[in-house]
């Protein structure tokens, strides 16, 4: 038996120093985050009321400025449409990459473009839809669905990437088992791969939604803004990010306060979504 060597004092000092450095760096990263949340709560909490949530902005220069109802509903609807567009396509692309395009040239090219798309600034998607659908007056000028398409473009690479990661995690042994039972490839995907990856796919989708819900730039250029609640995606629609964008530049304190309230609402919505996504992800890891 050899005696276990004692850790030297020098080594212990180095360890302590390294721990200190990393703790400090972590603090630096967290401070702005905490400040942002504090700021939004501080400035926005006062604006939140039932009236704030349940009335449309009036647009009156004097008197009651109204709330953000149309913006909340608009954001929900636009994001829903964008999700309905981006999630199936994104998962489809991921399925191609993982199930059929492994090791093919096309698969590599597609993956590369998805990567590039991930890094494209959101304003570019807005401009792309603006020049492609708004300027050309395709089915009218500014419209909710054009905003939804811009958001969907933004979500697409996020959904694809996260779905790809989840699908790769489905063990090959399951695919082999299904194939060896005489299942055609598409049935293996539909009956074995997708169900096994389901929670992960939902999590990835929700995170993409959370990312898209807060985007302003793709919406300003594509769906304009209106004050009253409008569910018709072929007309202009209001949304929380655009409402904030418009209010925060106003000279009236009341409107700036409304911007903070809207920001708090938006952050709360995204936070809830993220929490759901994380809970789902944790649950899937446990099983």
């Amino acid at each position, binding site marked *: 038996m050899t005696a276990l060597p004692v850790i030297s004092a020098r080594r212990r000092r180095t360890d302590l120093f390294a721990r200190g450095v990393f703790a400090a760096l972590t603090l630096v990263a967290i401070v702005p985050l905490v400040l942002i949340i504090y700021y939004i709560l501080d400035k926005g909490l006062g604006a939140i009321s039932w009236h704030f949530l349940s009335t449309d902005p009036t647009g009156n220069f004097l008197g009651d400025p109204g709330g953000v109802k149309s913006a909340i509903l608009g954001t929900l609807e636009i994001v829903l449409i964008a999700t309905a567009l981006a999630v199936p396509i994104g998962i489809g692309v991921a399925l191609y990459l993982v199930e059929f395009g492994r090791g093919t040239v096309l698969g590599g090219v597609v993956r590369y473009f998805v990567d590039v798309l991930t890094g494209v600034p959101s304003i570019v998607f807005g401009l792309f839809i603006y020049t492609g659908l708004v300027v050309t007056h395709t089915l009218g000028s500014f419209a909710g669905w054009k905003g939804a398409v811009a958001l969907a473009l933004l979500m697409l690479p996020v959904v694809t990437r996260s779905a790809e990661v989840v699908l790769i995690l489905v063990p090959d*042994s399951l695919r082999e*088992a*299904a194939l060896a039972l*005489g299942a055609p490839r598409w049935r293996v995907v539909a009956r074995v791969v997708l169900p096994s990856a389901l929670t992960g796919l939902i999590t990835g989708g929700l995170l993409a939604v959370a990312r898209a819900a807060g985007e302003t730039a793709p919406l300003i250029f594509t769906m304009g803004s209106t004050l009253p609640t409008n569910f018709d995606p072929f007309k202009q629609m209001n949304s929380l990010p655009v409402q904030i964008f418009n209010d925060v530049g106003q000279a009236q304190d009341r409107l700036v306060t409304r911007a903070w309230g809207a920001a708090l609402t938006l952050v709360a919505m995204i936070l809830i979504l993220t929490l759901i996504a994380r809970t789902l992800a944790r649950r899937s890891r446990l099983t």
Partner: protein
Amino acid sequence: MTGDGFAASQTAAAAGEHGLSRSPQTRRPLVAQAPSASARPTKAARRVRLEGLDAYYGDNHALRGLDLEFEPNKVTAIIGPSGCGKSTMIRCINRMHEEIPGARAEGKVCLDQVDVYDPSVNVVAVRRAIGMVFQKPNPFPTMSIFDNVASGIRLSGASRADLRDRVERALRGAGLWDEVKDRLAEPGIGLSGGQQQRLCIARTMAVDPEVLLMDEPCSALDPIATLKVEELLADLKQRVTVVLVTHNMQQAARVADSTAFLLDGELVEVGATDEMFTQPKDSRTEDYVTGKFG
């Protein structure tokens, strides 16, 4: 013959007759037909014959001109050192080999008269006729015990009539029924490793295959679970031709009627199991079975 005597080639006609062709109306008539089979005490399993089988992974020539025959209703063990091509060989039999990117096979694998690599043969039908059990138990994690066994029937698009009966029969056949009959709705991955492997055997047998390929089915199991699977083999071979890859000489000696020894992608020797272990003809076989290498 079904009357369509104009099939292009002998093999294509034979394929149609054996239900391996793509045309839907001739799908697996031998199983449904069964009169000839019922005349015999056991279900008519098929003879499997490899003729000049070569398999590649890209440039890696993993099997070199293999000629080998597996007798119907017998257990044939495949032994050989790691990397000699045992898995590759049995994956060639049900055409799973080609699922690996860059992998291909040449030569013939005949199921009775039908070459499963014939272009007129439907790969899905091949895999339904030739079931496979893997080294690690791999029940579908999202499915219940019942659904796992039913999955083979559902996934291969086979007729779903009397699904419950077929599941029960398959579970009984795998010696698992009494252990799981009260928890059929529970997830399949909740079973022990040995039970999971028997569940996988039930899942494979539920499709009613004619050949059963097993790639080291007991290597992840404890001795008692292994014994159960081995006892099962004696039953299973009443209905199917069994090809069993194993690293365990005792296991081969216990359950196999004949044994084949592979080395570096080539067949060294094949023969009755007791002869292979007591008086092998090839000195390399002797070295291997006596533990001098491998």
